[in-house]
Protein backbone atom coordinates (compact mmCIF):
# COMPACT_ATOMS: atom_id res chain seq x y z
CA UNK A 1 0.00 0.00 0.00
CA UNK A 2 1.40 3.46 -0.86
CA UNK A 3 2.19 5.71 2.10
CA UNK A 4 0.42 9.00 2.79
CA UNK A 5 2.48 11.83 4.24
CA UNK A 6 1.45 14.30 6.92
CA UNK A 7 3.46 17.51 6.84
CA UNK A 8 4.85 17.51 10.40
CA UNK A 9 6.58 20.87 10.73
CA UNK A 10 3.97 22.35 13.07
CA UNK A 11 0.28 21.96 13.90
CA UNK A 12 -2.19 19.21 14.74
CA UNK A 13 -0.24 16.42 13.06
CA UNK A 14 -1.27 13.78 15.60
CA UNK A 15 -5.01 14.12 14.91
CA UNK A 16 -4.53 13.75 11.15
CA UNK A 17 -2.31 10.77 11.70
CA UNK A 18 -4.92 9.13 13.95
CA UNK A 19 -7.74 9.74 11.46
CA UNK A 20 -5.71 8.39 8.53
CA UNK A 21 -4.53 5.34 10.45
CA UNK A 22 -8.10 4.78 11.61
CA UNK A 23 -8.99 4.43 7.93
CA UNK A 24 -6.20 1.91 7.44
CA UNK A 25 -3.70 4.20 5.69
CA UNK A 26 0.06 3.93 6.17
CA UNK A 27 1.33 7.30 7.41
CA UNK A 28 4.76 8.95 7.11
CA UNK A 29 5.52 12.24 8.87
CA UNK A 30 7.23 14.69 6.51
CA UNK A 31 9.90 17.01 7.92
CA UNK A 32 12.67 16.82 5.31
CA UNK A 33 12.95 16.61 1.50
CA UNK A 34 13.85 12.89 1.61
CA UNK A 35 10.55 12.11 3.37
CA UNK A 36 8.77 13.18 0.17
CA UNK A 37 10.38 10.32 -1.77
CA UNK A 38 8.28 7.65 -0.09
CA UNK A 39 4.81 9.20 -0.18
CA UNK A 40 2.02 9.01 -2.76
CA UNK A 41 -0.07 11.80 -1.25
CA UNK A 42 0.18 14.49 1.43
CA UNK A 43 -1.98 16.03 4.15
CA UNK A 44 -1.11 19.55 5.28
CA UNK A 45 -2.51 19.96 8.81
CA UNK A 46 -4.04 22.80 10.73
CA UNK A 47 -1.58 25.07 12.48
CA UNK A 48 -0.26 28.58 11.98
CA UNK A 49 0.23 29.14 8.26
CA UNK A 50 3.02 31.71 8.74
CA UNK A 51 4.99 29.26 10.88
CA UNK A 52 4.39 26.36 8.46
CA UNK A 53 5.43 28.50 5.45
CA UNK A 54 8.58 29.62 7.30
CA UNK A 55 9.49 26.03 8.21
CA UNK A 56 8.80 24.81 4.64
CA UNK A 57 11.59 27.14 3.52
CA UNK A 58 14.09 26.44 6.31
CA UNK A 59 13.59 22.66 6.09
CA UNK A 60 14.25 22.68 2.34
CA UNK A 61 10.87 21.00 1.68
CA UNK A 62 9.36 23.88 -0.32
CA UNK A 63 11.07 23.35 -3.69
CA UNK A 64 10.80 19.55 -3.91
CA UNK A 65 7.19 19.69 -2.69
CA UNK A 66 6.37 22.25 -5.38
CA UNK A 67 7.77 19.79 -7.94
CA UNK A 68 5.64 16.97 -6.60
CA UNK A 69 2.58 19.23 -6.72
CA UNK A 70 3.38 20.15 -10.32
CA UNK A 71 3.49 16.43 -11.06
CA UNK A 72 -0.02 16.10 -9.64
CA UNK A 73 0.56 14.49 -6.26
CA UNK A 74 -2.76 14.44 -4.33
CA UNK A 75 -2.91 16.85 -1.38
CA UNK A 76 -5.47 17.56 1.33
CA UNK A 77 -5.06 20.81 3.27
CA UNK A 78 -7.11 21.76 6.33
CA UNK A 79 -7.33 25.34 7.59
CA UNK A 80 -3.67 26.50 7.49
CA UNK A 81 -3.16 23.76 4.87
CA UNK A 82 -5.72 25.46 2.64
CA UNK A 83 -3.89 28.80 2.93
CA UNK A 84 -0.62 27.08 2.02
CA UNK A 85 -2.20 25.64 -1.15
CA UNK A 86 -4.34 28.63 -2.26
CA UNK A 87 -3.64 30.65 -5.41
CA UNK A 88 -4.38 33.99 -3.74
CA UNK A 89 -4.28 34.91 -0.04
CA UNK A 90 -5.85 38.07 1.43
CA UNK A 91 -4.92 39.65 4.78
CA UNK A 92 -1.61 37.83 4.68
CA UNK A 93 1.85 39.13 5.44
CA UNK A 94 3.48 41.42 2.88
CA UNK A 95 5.76 38.52 1.86
CA UNK A 96 3.01 35.85 1.96
CA UNK A 97 3.63 33.03 -0.51
CA UNK A 98 1.72 29.85 -1.28
CA UNK A 99 1.98 26.88 -3.62
CA UNK A 100 -0.93 28.20 -5.69
CA UNK A 101 -2.18 24.75 -6.70
CA UNK A 102 -5.74 25.40 -5.50
CA UNK A 103 -7.62 27.94 -7.62
CA UNK A 104 -9.25 29.88 -4.80
CA UNK A 105 -8.82 33.24 -3.09
CA UNK A 106 -8.91 32.88 0.69
CA UNK A 107 -8.96 35.49 3.41
CA UNK A 108 -6.90 34.60 6.46
CA UNK A 109 -8.96 34.64 9.68
CA UNK A 110 -11.88 35.45 7.36
CA UNK A 111 -14.38 34.39 10.01
CA UNK A 112 -12.73 36.50 12.74
CA UNK A 113 -10.25 36.07 15.57
CA UNK A 114 -10.40 33.27 18.16
CA UNK A 115 -13.46 34.61 20.06
CA UNK A 116 -15.40 34.16 16.78
CA UNK A 117 -14.21 30.56 16.27
CA UNK A 118 -17.24 28.30 16.02
CA UNK A 119 -18.73 24.87 15.48
CA UNK A 120 -21.38 24.45 12.77
CA UNK A 121 -22.65 21.71 10.47
CA UNK A 122 -21.19 21.58 6.98
CA UNK A 123 -23.83 20.85 4.32
CA UNK A 124 -22.54 18.34 1.78
CA UNK A 125 -23.22 18.84 -1.91
CA UNK A 126 -23.86 15.09 -2.06
CA UNK A 127 -26.54 15.43 0.64
CA UNK A 128 -26.41 15.25 4.41
CA UNK A 129 -24.00 17.08 6.67
CA UNK A 130 -20.85 16.62 8.71
CA UNK A 131 -19.67 18.48 11.84
CA UNK A 132 -17.37 21.44 11.22
CA UNK A 133 -14.92 22.96 13.72
CA UNK A 134 -13.74 26.38 12.51
CA UNK A 135 -10.77 27.91 14.36
CA UNK A 136 -9.54 31.33 13.17
CA UNK A 137 -10.60 29.80 9.88
CA UNK A 138 -9.72 31.00 6.38
CA UNK A 139 -12.70 32.05 4.25
CA UNK A 140 -12.95 31.15 0.56
CA UNK A 141 -13.99 34.37 -1.16
CA UNK A 142 -13.50 33.47 -4.83
CA UNK A 143 -12.99 30.22 -6.70
CA UNK A 144 -12.26 29.20 -10.25
CA UNK A 145 -14.62 27.38 -12.62
CA UNK A 146 -12.59 24.21 -12.23
CA UNK A 147 -13.15 24.10 -8.48
CA UNK A 148 -15.77 21.66 -7.23
CA UNK A 149 -17.63 22.72 -4.06
CA UNK A 150 -18.12 19.67 -1.84
CA UNK A 151 -19.41 21.34 1.33
CA UNK A 152 -20.86 24.69 2.36
CA UNK A 153 -21.64 26.58 5.53
CA UNK A 154 -24.03 29.48 6.00
CA UNK A 155 -22.97 32.18 8.47
CA UNK A 156 -25.91 34.44 7.72
CA UNK A 157 -24.69 35.71 4.37
CA UNK A 158 -25.48 32.79 2.08
CA UNK A 159 -23.97 29.36 1.50
CA UNK A 160 -20.21 29.71 1.29
CA UNK A 161 -17.85 26.91 0.21
CA UNK A 162 -15.81 25.41 3.06
CA UNK A 163 -14.76 22.10 1.46
CA UNK A 164 -13.48 22.17 -2.13
CA UNK A 165 -11.60 20.12 -4.70
CA UNK A 166 -9.48 21.36 -7.59
CA UNK A 167 -8.28 18.23 -9.41
CA UNK A 168 -5.83 16.47 -7.13
CA UNK A 169 -5.87 19.28 -4.54
CA UNK A 170 -8.49 19.16 -1.78
CA UNK A 171 -8.95 21.65 1.04
CA UNK A 172 -11.32 22.66 3.82
CA UNK A 173 -11.64 25.72 6.05
CA UNK A 174 -12.56 23.55 9.02
CA UNK A 175 -10.85 20.76 10.96
CA UNK A 176 -12.27 17.31 10.12
CA UNK A 177 -9.34 15.85 12.09
CA UNK A 178 -10.78 17.25 15.34
CA UNK A 179 -14.03 15.28 15.06
CA UNK A 180 -14.76 11.57 14.80
CA UNK A 181 -16.24 12.00 11.31
CA UNK A 182 -13.92 10.48 8.67
CA UNK A 183 -15.77 11.68 5.55
CA UNK A 184 -13.22 14.24 4.33
CA UNK A 185 -10.21 11.96 4.76
CA UNK A 186 -11.96 8.87 3.41
CA UNK A 187 -13.22 10.69 0.31
CA UNK A 188 -9.71 12.02 -0.41
CA UNK A 189 -7.96 8.69 0.10
CA UNK A 190 -10.56 6.74 -1.90
CA UNK A 191 -10.50 9.16 -4.85
CA UNK A 192 -6.75 8.65 -5.28
CA UNK A 193 -6.49 4.93 -4.54
CA UNK A 194 -4.63 5.55 -1.28
CA UNK A 195 -6.71 3.13 0.78
Amino acid sequence: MPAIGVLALQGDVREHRATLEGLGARVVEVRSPRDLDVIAGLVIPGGESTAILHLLVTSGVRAPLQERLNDGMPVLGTCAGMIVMARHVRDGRSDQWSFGSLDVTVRRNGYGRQVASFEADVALSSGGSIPGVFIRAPRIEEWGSGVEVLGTCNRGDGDAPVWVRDGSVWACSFHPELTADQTVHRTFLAAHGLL
Partner: protein
Amino acid sequence: MSVNENSTVGTARVKRGLADMLRGGVIMDVVNPEQAKIAEDAGAVAVMALERVPSDIRRDGGVARMSDPQMIREIQETVTIPVMAKARIGHFAEAQILQSLDVDYIDESEVLTPADETNHIDKWPFTVPFVCGATNLGEALRRIGEGACMIRSKGEAGTGNIVEAVRHLRTINEQMRRLRAADEAELYALAKDLQAPLPLVLEVAQTGALPVPLFCAGGIATPADASLVMQLGAEAVFVGSGIFKSEDPNRMARAIVEATTHFRDPSIVAKVSTGLGAAMRGAETASLEQRLAERGW
Protein backbone atom coordinates in the same frame (compact mmCIF):
# COMPACT_ATOMS: atom_id res chain seq x y z
CA MET B 1 -30.58 26.47 3.23
CA SER B 2 -31.37 28.51 6.30
CA VAL B 3 -28.78 29.98 8.62
CA ASN B 4 -27.31 27.26 10.77
CA GLU B 5 -28.98 27.44 14.15
CA ASN B 6 -26.66 24.92 15.73
CA SER B 7 -23.65 27.19 15.29
CA THR B 8 -21.88 27.95 18.55
CA VAL B 9 -18.83 29.95 19.59
CA GLY B 10 -16.65 29.43 22.65
CA THR B 11 -17.16 25.65 22.90
CA ALA B 12 -14.56 23.56 24.69
CA ARG B 13 -13.67 22.08 21.29
CA VAL B 14 -12.86 25.39 19.60
CA LYS B 15 -11.06 26.66 22.69
CA ARG B 16 -8.92 23.54 23.10
CA GLY B 17 -8.67 23.32 19.31
CA LEU B 18 -6.61 26.51 19.05
CA ALA B 19 -4.13 25.01 21.52
CA ASP B 20 -3.96 21.94 19.24
CA MET B 21 -3.11 24.21 16.29
CA LEU B 22 -0.19 25.73 18.22
CA ARG B 23 1.43 22.35 18.88
CA GLY B 24 5.01 21.97 17.72
CA GLY B 25 5.43 25.74 17.77
CA VAL B 26 7.01 28.53 19.78
CA ILE B 27 5.07 31.28 21.57
CA MET B 28 7.25 34.32 22.23
CA ASP B 29 6.94 37.10 24.82
CA VAL B 30 7.06 40.53 23.16
CA VAL B 31 6.81 44.01 24.64
CA ASN B 32 6.25 46.11 21.50
CA PRO B 33 5.23 45.82 17.81
CA GLU B 34 8.89 45.67 16.64
CA GLN B 35 9.55 42.58 18.73
CA ALA B 36 6.23 41.07 17.60
CA LYS B 37 7.36 41.46 13.98
CA ILE B 38 10.70 39.81 14.71
CA ALA B 39 8.86 36.93 16.38
CA GLU B 40 6.46 36.43 13.46
CA ASP B 41 9.30 36.66 10.92
CA ALA B 42 11.17 33.99 12.87
CA GLY B 43 8.25 31.55 12.63
CA ALA B 44 6.57 32.00 16.03
CA VAL B 45 3.06 30.47 16.18
CA ALA B 46 1.82 33.19 18.54
CA VAL B 47 3.06 36.11 20.62
CA MET B 48 2.41 36.96 24.26
CA ALA B 49 1.95 40.73 24.56
CA LEU B 50 3.18 42.11 27.87
CA GLU B 51 4.78 45.31 29.15
CA ARG B 52 7.87 43.75 30.70
CA VAL B 53 9.40 40.33 30.16
CA PRO B 54 9.62 38.23 33.34
CA SER B 55 13.30 38.94 34.01
CA ASP B 56 12.52 42.68 34.10
CA ILE B 57 9.44 42.14 36.28
CA ARG B 58 11.71 40.21 38.64
CA ARG B 59 14.32 42.99 38.62
CA ASP B 60 11.88 45.90 39.00
CA GLY B 61 9.68 44.43 41.74
CA GLY B 62 6.38 46.13 42.57
CA VAL B 63 2.93 44.96 41.45
CA ALA B 64 2.84 43.51 37.94
CA ARG B 65 -0.53 43.90 36.17
CA MET B 66 -2.31 43.35 32.85
CA SER B 67 -0.77 45.30 29.94
CA ASP B 68 -2.10 48.58 28.56
CA PRO B 69 -4.85 47.80 25.98
CA GLN B 70 -3.24 50.28 23.57
CA MET B 71 -0.05 48.24 23.50
CA ILE B 72 -2.02 45.00 22.92
CA ARG B 73 -3.94 46.62 20.04
CA GLU B 74 -0.76 47.83 18.38
CA ILE B 75 0.63 44.31 18.45
CA GLN B 76 -2.65 42.87 17.09
CA GLU B 77 -2.40 45.33 14.19
CA THR B 78 1.22 44.40 13.50
CA VAL B 79 1.08 40.60 13.24
CA THR B 80 -1.27 38.03 11.68
CA ILE B 81 -0.55 35.25 14.20
CA PRO B 82 -2.55 34.80 17.43
CA VAL B 83 -1.92 37.36 20.18
CA MET B 84 -2.08 36.24 23.81
CA ALA B 85 -2.05 38.42 26.92
CA LYS B 86 -1.69 37.87 30.66
CA ALA B 87 -4.19 38.47 33.44
CA ARG B 88 -3.39 38.25 37.15
CA ILE B 89 -4.41 35.04 38.94
CA GLY B 90 -8.04 35.45 40.05
CA HIS B 91 -8.45 38.84 38.34
CA PHE B 92 -11.52 38.10 36.25
CA ALA B 93 -12.07 41.79 35.47
CA GLU B 94 -8.70 41.94 33.70
CA ALA B 95 -9.72 38.79 31.82
CA GLN B 96 -13.04 40.39 30.79
CA ILE B 97 -11.10 43.38 29.43
CA LEU B 98 -8.73 41.13 27.49
CA GLN B 99 -11.67 39.21 26.01
CA SER B 100 -13.28 42.49 24.91
CA LEU B 101 -10.00 43.34 23.17
CA ASP B 102 -10.34 40.11 21.11
CA VAL B 103 -7.08 38.59 22.35
CA ASP B 104 -6.80 34.98 21.16
CA TYR B 105 -5.69 33.38 24.45
CA ILE B 106 -5.47 34.59 28.06
CA ASP B 107 -2.62 33.42 30.26
CA GLU B 108 -3.76 33.48 33.91
CA SER B 109 -0.20 33.93 35.00
CA GLU B 110 1.90 33.68 38.12
CA VAL B 111 4.36 36.06 36.43
CA LEU B 112 1.95 38.85 37.35
CA THR B 113 1.11 39.62 40.98
CA PRO B 114 -1.86 37.45 42.08
CA ALA B 115 -5.14 39.30 42.70
CA ASP B 116 -6.90 36.56 44.69
CA GLU B 117 -5.22 34.38 47.30
CA THR B 118 -7.89 31.68 47.18
CA ASN B 119 -9.62 31.53 43.82
CA HIS B 120 -8.45 31.32 40.27
CA ILE B 121 -10.68 32.74 37.53
CA ASP B 122 -13.79 30.70 36.67
CA LYS B 123 -12.82 30.24 33.06
CA TRP B 124 -15.88 28.38 31.75
CA PRO B 125 -18.09 31.45 31.11
CA PHE B 126 -15.48 33.03 28.83
CA THR B 127 -15.50 32.70 25.03
CA VAL B 128 -11.75 33.26 24.88
CA PRO B 129 -9.64 30.26 25.95
CA PHE B 130 -7.24 30.28 28.92
CA VAL B 131 -3.82 28.78 29.53
CA CYS B 132 -2.68 28.24 33.12
CA GLY B 133 0.56 27.14 34.72
CA ALA B 134 1.03 23.98 36.76
CA THR B 135 3.86 22.43 38.74
CA ASN B 136 2.21 19.02 39.18
CA LEU B 137 -0.74 16.95 37.96
CA GLY B 138 -3.13 17.98 40.74
CA GLU B 139 -2.59 21.65 39.95
CA ALA B 140 -3.03 20.97 36.22
CA LEU B 141 -6.32 19.13 36.75
CA ARG B 142 -7.64 21.81 39.13
CA ARG B 143 -7.01 24.42 36.43
CA ILE B 144 -8.68 22.23 33.79
CA GLY B 145 -11.60 21.78 36.19
CA GLU B 146 -11.92 25.58 36.25
CA GLY B 147 -11.98 25.65 32.44
CA ALA B 148 -8.34 26.02 31.34
CA CYS B 149 -7.89 24.80 27.75
CA MET B 150 -4.10 24.51 27.77
CA ILE B 151 -1.66 23.73 30.57
CA ARG B 152 1.94 24.90 30.66
CA SER B 153 4.66 24.12 33.13
CA LYS B 154 5.43 27.12 35.30
CA GLY B 155 9.17 26.76 35.26
CA GLU B 156 10.80 29.67 37.05
CA ALA B 157 10.06 32.56 34.71
CA GLY B 158 12.72 35.14 34.00
CA THR B 159 15.67 33.04 35.17
CA GLY B 160 16.85 31.43 31.93
CA ASN B 161 17.19 28.29 34.04
CA ILE B 162 15.39 25.22 32.73
CA VAL B 163 15.62 23.16 35.91
CA GLU B 164 12.18 24.04 37.29
CA ALA B 165 10.36 23.42 34.01
CA VAL B 166 12.03 20.03 33.78
CA ARG B 167 10.90 19.24 37.31
CA HIS B 168 7.30 20.23 36.50
CA LEU B 169 7.15 18.22 33.26
CA ARG B 170 8.70 15.16 34.87
CA THR B 171 6.36 15.43 37.85
CA ILE B 172 3.23 15.74 35.69
CA ASN B 173 4.30 12.82 33.48
CA GLU B 174 5.28 10.64 36.43
CA GLN B 175 1.94 11.30 38.14
CA MET B 176 0.05 10.49 34.93
CA ARG B 177 1.92 7.19 34.63
CA ARG B 178 1.00 6.43 38.24
CA LEU B 179 -2.70 6.95 37.44
CA ARG B 180 -2.46 4.83 34.31
CA ALA B 181 -0.94 1.95 36.28
CA ALA B 182 -3.31 2.23 39.26
CA ASP B 183 -5.98 -0.28 40.16
CA GLU B 184 -9.44 1.24 39.64
CA ALA B 185 -10.16 1.08 43.36
CA GLU B 186 -7.06 3.19 44.05
CA LEU B 187 -8.13 6.11 41.87
CA TYR B 188 -10.42 7.65 44.51
CA ALA B 189 -7.61 7.94 47.04
CA LEU B 190 -5.23 9.14 44.34
CA ALA B 191 -7.72 11.88 43.39
CA LYS B 192 -7.80 12.90 47.03
CA ASP B 193 -3.99 12.94 47.23
CA LEU B 194 -3.77 15.00 44.04
CA GLN B 195 -6.60 17.27 45.26
CA ALA B 196 -8.00 16.95 41.76
CA PRO B 197 -11.56 16.50 40.42
CA LEU B 198 -12.40 12.78 40.28
CA PRO B 199 -13.85 12.78 36.72
CA LEU B 200 -10.60 14.26 35.38
CA VAL B 201 -8.52 11.76 37.35
CA LEU B 202 -10.57 8.91 35.85
CA GLU B 203 -10.09 10.39 32.37
CA VAL B 204 -6.31 10.63 32.73
CA ALA B 205 -6.18 7.09 34.13
CA GLN B 206 -7.97 5.91 31.00
CA THR B 207 -6.13 7.94 28.33
CA GLY B 208 -2.72 8.42 29.97
CA ALA B 209 -2.67 12.05 28.85
CA LEU B 210 -4.07 15.41 29.91
CA PRO B 211 -7.43 16.28 28.30
CA VAL B 212 -5.82 19.50 26.98
CA PRO B 213 -2.40 20.16 25.39
CA LEU B 214 0.63 20.37 27.71
CA PHE B 215 3.12 23.09 26.79
CA CYS B 216 6.35 24.13 28.48
CA ALA B 217 7.15 27.57 29.88
CA GLY B 218 9.73 29.04 32.20
CA GLY B 219 13.48 29.20 31.73
CA ILE B 220 13.88 28.22 28.06
CA ALA B 221 16.97 30.12 26.85
CA THR B 222 18.58 28.00 24.10
CA PRO B 223 17.61 25.67 21.21
CA ALA B 224 18.89 22.78 23.31
CA ASP B 225 16.46 23.74 26.10
CA ALA B 226 13.60 23.59 23.59
CA SER B 227 14.71 20.17 22.36
CA LEU B 228 15.02 18.91 25.94
CA VAL B 229 11.51 19.85 27.01
CA MET B 230 9.95 18.62 23.75
CA GLN B 231 11.61 15.26 24.31
CA LEU B 232 10.23 15.28 27.86
CA GLY B 233 6.71 15.46 26.43
CA ALA B 234 5.97 19.17 26.03
CA GLU B 235 3.86 19.77 22.91
CA ALA B 236 5.05 23.35 22.30
CA VAL B 237 7.16 25.94 24.10
CA PHE B 238 6.72 29.43 25.49
CA VAL B 239 9.86 31.56 25.49
CA GLY B 240 9.80 34.64 27.69
CA SER B 241 12.99 36.53 28.41
CA GLY B 242 15.10 33.97 26.52
CA ILE B 243 14.81 35.64 23.13
CA PHE B 244 14.83 39.39 23.62
CA LYS B 245 17.38 39.23 26.47
CA SER B 246 19.83 37.30 24.31
CA GLU B 247 22.66 38.87 22.33
CA ASP B 248 21.02 38.36 18.90
CA PRO B 249 17.22 38.02 19.35
CA ASN B 250 16.51 37.54 15.64
CA ARG B 251 18.85 34.55 15.35
CA MET B 252 17.90 33.13 18.74
CA ALA B 253 14.20 33.26 17.81
CA ARG B 254 14.79 31.41 14.52
CA ALA B 255 17.05 28.86 16.18
CA ILE B 256 14.52 28.00 18.90
CA VAL B 257 11.77 27.64 16.27
CA GLU B 258 13.94 25.20 14.27
CA ALA B 259 14.92 23.25 17.37
CA THR B 260 11.27 22.90 18.45
CA THR B 261 10.23 21.45 15.08
CA HIS B 262 13.28 19.22 14.66
CA PHE B 263 13.78 18.36 18.35
CA ARG B 264 14.39 14.69 17.54
CA ASP B 265 17.29 15.53 15.18
CA PRO B 266 20.39 16.60 17.17
CA SER B 267 22.29 17.47 13.99
CA ILE B 268 19.75 20.19 13.17
CA VAL B 269 19.73 21.45 16.78
CA ALA B 270 23.55 21.54 16.63
CA LYS B 271 23.48 23.48 13.39
CA VAL B 272 21.10 26.17 14.67
CA SER B 273 23.01 26.40 17.99
CA THR B 274 26.27 27.26 16.22
CA GLY B 275 27.56 30.83 16.66
CA LEU B 276 24.33 32.08 18.20
CA GLY B 277 25.95 34.60 20.52
CA ALA B 278 25.26 34.74 24.23
CA ALA B 279 22.00 33.43 25.63
CA MET B 280 20.33 35.49 28.37
CA ARG B 281 22.49 35.65 31.48
CA GLY B 282 20.15 33.73 33.75
CA ALA B 283 19.91 33.06 37.45
CA GLU B 284 20.38 30.11 39.77
CA THR B 285 16.92 29.39 41.17
CA ALA B 286 18.27 28.44 44.62
CA SER B 287 19.43 32.02 45.10
CA LEU B 288 16.10 33.70 44.19
CA GLU B 289 14.26 35.82 46.73
CA GLN B 290 10.91 35.49 44.91
CA ARG B 291 9.75 32.12 43.55
CA LEU B 292 7.06 32.84 40.95
CA ALA B 293 6.20 29.15 40.56
CA GLU B 294 4.87 29.14 44.13
CA ARG B 295 2.13 31.56 43.12
CA GLY B 296 -1.13 29.76 42.33
CA TRP B 297 -2.23 26.57 44.02
